[in-house]
């Protein structure tokens, strides 16, 4: 069964002007993130999803790259968010 990613408890995010802020109560990190990463978190807020589902749901057209690279982008973002105590695998 494919691994799903979920938002950790205590993660909040806010849209201020044209920038996107994320705060994790677990790691106590505050970050400014890219708009796509912000959308990814918004999707995970609804319910847990796999990286493939996220790749399909996110509008990654601006990346103008191969499907593999788009998935790499999502995987890298998820890896960073896991390290920073923002998402977890279930």
């Amino acid at each position, binding site marked *: 069964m494919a691994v799903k990613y979920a938002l950790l408890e205590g993660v*909040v995010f806010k849209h*201020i*002007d044209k*920038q996107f*802020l994320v705060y994790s109560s677990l790691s*106590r990190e*505050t970050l400014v993130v890219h708009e796509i990463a912000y959308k990814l978190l918004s999707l995970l807020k609804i319910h847990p999803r796999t990286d493939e589902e996220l790749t399909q749901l996110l509008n990654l057209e601006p990346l103008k790259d191969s499907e593999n690279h788009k998935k790499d982008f999502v995987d890298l973002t998820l890896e960073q968010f896991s390290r920073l105590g923002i998402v977890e695998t279930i």
Partner: protein
Amino acid sequence: MPVQVYDLSIPPFQIRLETDISLVSDSIEKLYSKENLLIGNENQFFDFHIKVTTPTLYRKYFRPQAQFFSDGKAPFKPLPISQAYPFFEWGLNWCIASYTYQYLILHAAVIEKNNQAIILPGKPGAGKSTLCAALVCSGWRLLSDEMAVIDLQTLELLPVVRPVSLKNESIEIISEFAPDAEFGDTFFDTAKGVVSHLKPPEESMKNNRRRAKAHTIIFPQFTSQADMKLTKKSRAETVLELARNSFNYSVLGQQGFDVLCELVTEINCFEFEYSSLDEAIKQFETLIEKK
């Protein structure tokens, strides 16, 4: 010297200070005013019980030292007795930063005019205290030189009116800028260089309970001979920087994040490079609305 006890009201805090070092009591009497003294009451509550005293009898006479105690514990190594007063001020900063969780506290100066407060966060050496001192000597009200204390519910800024700590060249700059300003003693060879304290103006002392609303956040940077430059800073970047500048943001958790995001929402944030205090003050006057 016999032990002197000062029951100080520095809203929103109350402090009992005991000292047997005349350098401390002389500076307290010079730099604090009658608004700060609490009338004796046996059952008075104090947020901090502080003692600044010689650590041992031996150190009273041989290379005399001062030790700072908070609630009976000494969180720092002793310093030469000549630095006893700055030691009290630094120790009090530490007490407030370490034990106050009912407010969000940022490392920043705060000044106010027409109920419009400007928050000046700054890295050490950025010229925050010098600019703050020049502004309060030019009619702005001092809320604090060292910390922006923010009410978590109303987001109002609370004054913590204490002497403004000036270092090295700033002492001479402010003495020349405001010849009537009252200074305490000068302390040499401290960890921060030469230190002297500016007495807060009477008007600021009289209003030391009046809160203010944040109007602007300015990150000052003194650069010798630079042309003055006021550059808009993004609100999100401001939140990040304020979080880094906060004493208790990580303790407050999400509440701290929410407060900072809400604080920046309706105000302007700038980076400000300056080399002339006169120009800087004129610029600050243009930022607030006249009433």
